């Protein structure tokens, strides 16, 4: 395996003394060279397209085995309900908690174990690739941003009955029209927020030093670490415990969740960046990968539905559209979507504690407003649940879904081309593809 050039701030020449203050010295000598295939997996990030196609196929299998979607926000809402119950609030009469089947504690529900698996998988992956580090936000306003963005995203996603998973990545392959509305709404919300986050208050001033620094290139070593085995050990222990207690389903969904967590972290899968960079810098790698991942998932899901499985359909309502706009706004302001904050938190980014908190609060507020403020009647349940397979037949549904995905892809390509017109590049610079 060829070693890419590696550099570190030089100790000589002496003129380099005024470098950035807190830079670490030379890398630790204990790093292991890439020798083992498993090691190589954690030495660098995985390319987005294969990773998202794998996630799409796994999500389709997850549906095939469990009959449920790979989804997270429904469970976040139940956590909010559980917290209110702890405070002595009787939420049994709230219609939304009836709709999302609030029963027992997180450890009594498959979704709770699936999410535990996602956290463990992402943690394992971050530890194994040496990407774990406690990072506090560079400025205090990021906490406010995280909380408000998380709140908007939590509220919006539950209004639409799902986040970037159940109303987007795993919702579209179910042929539910509500996810079309949600996707369009999210792209629009991300456009508003991408202008907002570029204002002076959001940006702040970076730490800049104009003193020259001398940097040397060295041979590279692998970044993988055995620390990831800790996460694997915890995962195995919990799986064994569940099997011992007779909860084979819990163990199964937890292992699937862990696989999703590893894919998200290794691929740095980020719906927020896919939607935001479309408007900000015209970077489209992640957006294209998400579209291809949904296409792969659609094919398998279509086979499962044709063989008699029941698709999961929600109201194609203004709630799905407005929820999408709020969600798009929220994730770009927060800096991470519902799946994004999960693995970023496991990488040690404390900023995402605020996002997580905002999400649970936002989802709980929506659950309250669902019947107490009449949101359900005004924005959701009065509209039909449109199942494209029932409306257009399987062939029509497949054609419509692929046409929608193709339109999204064409739009993404258009945005990139339009952005590149604003950049003058020297002829010699090779335009490399994103590794």
């Amino acid at each position, binding site marked *: 395996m060829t*070693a*890419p050039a*590696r*550099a*570190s701030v*030089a100790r000589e*020449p002496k003129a380099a003394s005024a470098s950035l203050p807190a830079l*670490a010295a030379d*890398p630790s000598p204990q790093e292991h060279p890439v020798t083992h295939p498993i090691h190589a997996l954690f030495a660098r*990030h995985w390319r987005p397209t294969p990773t998202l196609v794998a996630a799409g196929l796994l999500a389709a299998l997850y549906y095939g085995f469990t009959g449920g979607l790979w989804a997270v926000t429904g469970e976040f809402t139940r956590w909010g309900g559980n917290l209110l119950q702890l405070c002595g609030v009787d939420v049994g009469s709230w219609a939304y908690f009836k709709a999302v089947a609030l029963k027992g504690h997180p450890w009594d529900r498959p979704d709770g174990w699936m999410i535990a698996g996602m956290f463990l998988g992402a943690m394992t992956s971050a530890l194994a690739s*040496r*990407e774990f*580090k406690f*990072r506090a936000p*560079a*400025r205090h306003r990021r906490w406010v941003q995280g909380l408000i963005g998380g709140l908007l995203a939590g509220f919006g996603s539950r209004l639409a009955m799902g986040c970037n998973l159940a109303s987007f990545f795993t919702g579209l392959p179910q042929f539910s029209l509500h996810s079309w509305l949600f996707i369009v709404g999210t792209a629009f919300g991300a*456009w508003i927020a*991408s*202008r907002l986050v*570029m204002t002076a208050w959001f*940006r*702040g001033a*970076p*730490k*800049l*030093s*104009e*003193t*020259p*620094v*001398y*940097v*040397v*290139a*060295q*041979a*590279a070593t692998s970044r993988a670490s055995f620390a990831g085995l800790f996460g694997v050990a915890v995962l195995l222990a919990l799986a064994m415990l569940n099997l011992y207690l007779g909860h084979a389903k819990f163990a199964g969904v937890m292992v699937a969740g862990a696989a999703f967590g590893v894919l998200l972290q290794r691929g*740095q899968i980020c719906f927020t*960046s896919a939607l*935001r960079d479309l408007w*900000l*810098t015209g*970077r489209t*790698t992640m957006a294209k990968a998400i579209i291809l991942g949904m296409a792969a998932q659609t094919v398998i899901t279509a086979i499962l539905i044709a063989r008699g499985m029941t698709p999961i359909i929600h109201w194609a309502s203004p709630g799905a559209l407005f929820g999408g706009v709020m969600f798009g706004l929220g994730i770009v302001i927060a*800096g*991470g979507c519902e799946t994004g904050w999960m693995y*970023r938190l496991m*990488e040690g*980014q404390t*900023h995402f504690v605020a996002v997580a908190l905002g999400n649970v609060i936002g989802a709980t507020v929506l659950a309250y407003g669902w019947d107490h403020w009449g949101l359900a009647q005004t924005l959701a349940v009065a509209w039909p649940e449109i199942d494209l397979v029932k409306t257009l037949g399987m062939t029509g549904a497949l054609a419509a879904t692929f046409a929608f995905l193709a339109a999204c892809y064409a739009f993404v390509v258009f945005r990139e081309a339009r*952005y590149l017109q*604003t*950049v*003058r*590049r*020297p002829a010699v*610079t*090779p*335009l*490399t593809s994103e590794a």
Partner: protein
Amino acid sequence: MTMIEETVRADASIDLRGEVCPHPVMLTLEQLDRMQTGQVLLVVADCPPALRSIPFEVVRHGHRVIGEPICDGPDIRILIEKTGERVADFPCCCNAKG
């Protein structure tokens, strides 16, 4: 494995540790806009996506990444030579040249 290949003089350095997306990429591009062609910028970041997004974006904007991004544990260091230029602000972006 060769130990020392090249010594590079960075004219300025920017510390983006603790920043989350999109700020590492946007602040790097804005700093490059303020520099002279041929000058070198050292970027230090600790947000994992920056390892991929910063080199990709600066090359797309016509700049040159010197060597490969350097990973020192979770910290990432990237050396960039300014060679490109943004000729106009993107309609959806605010005035990036500040």
